[in-house]
């Protein structure tokens, strides 16, 4: 088993159009690195200078990872990670 990562429309150009891909890792950080090896370029859209980008929401199951442990959040087989770009502006 692996971790399902749900990809928003705007990042599907990195996943060949796939809405969801699977990846592995013990933490969110590792998961994103694993994602990067299969889908080069995607990490930069999620992470900036070692932190999650401010206007990208990442959820582990039903929780915003900002309220868990950010990139250090532990993840395990069977979890679902959802990426949603924040809807924001001025």
């Amino acid at each position: 088993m692996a971790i399902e990562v749900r990809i928003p429309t705007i990042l599907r150009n990195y996943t060949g159009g796939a809405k969801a891909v699977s990846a592995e890792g013990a933490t969110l950080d590792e998961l994103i690195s694993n994602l990067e090896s299969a889908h080069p370029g995607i990490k930069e859209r999620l992470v900036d200078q070692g932190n999650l980008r401010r206007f990208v929401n990442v959820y582990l199951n039903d929780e915003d990872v900002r309220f868990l442990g950010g990139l250090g959040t532990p993840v395990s087989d069977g979890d679902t990670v959802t990426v949603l770009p924040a809807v924001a502006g001025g």
Partner: protein
Amino acid sequence: MLTISQELVDKIIAHARADHPDEACGVIAGRGGVPERFVPMENAERSPTFYRFDSMEQLRVWREMDDRDEEPVVIYHSHTATEAYPSRTDISYASEPDAHYVLVSTRDEQDVEFRSFRIVDGVVSEEEVRFIP
């Protein structure tokens, strides 16, 4: 071109008026590019110059749309002191290339501006809005 019912337009404007002087924001969900279901969202910033969907509410609403085979056909927000045109921040955070970005300005108490745009890769193009009864 955005084709939208007058009823939905009235709901967007009423939301924008109610939250003035803070910016109001929300989504019209629908299928096949037709806006149908009005979903007002909380502006987590509660600000007259900025808006951001609350992240937990956004997850819930996005899942609901997924379950119903809907997409965010319209993403709307208000400007409360400036014209109904995407600001620099609106453009840099626009992340739904298939959505109609609707801007409403409540700066005039009598008159309301209601305009629609596509924002793709940092490029704004205004589109015609057709109101249907």
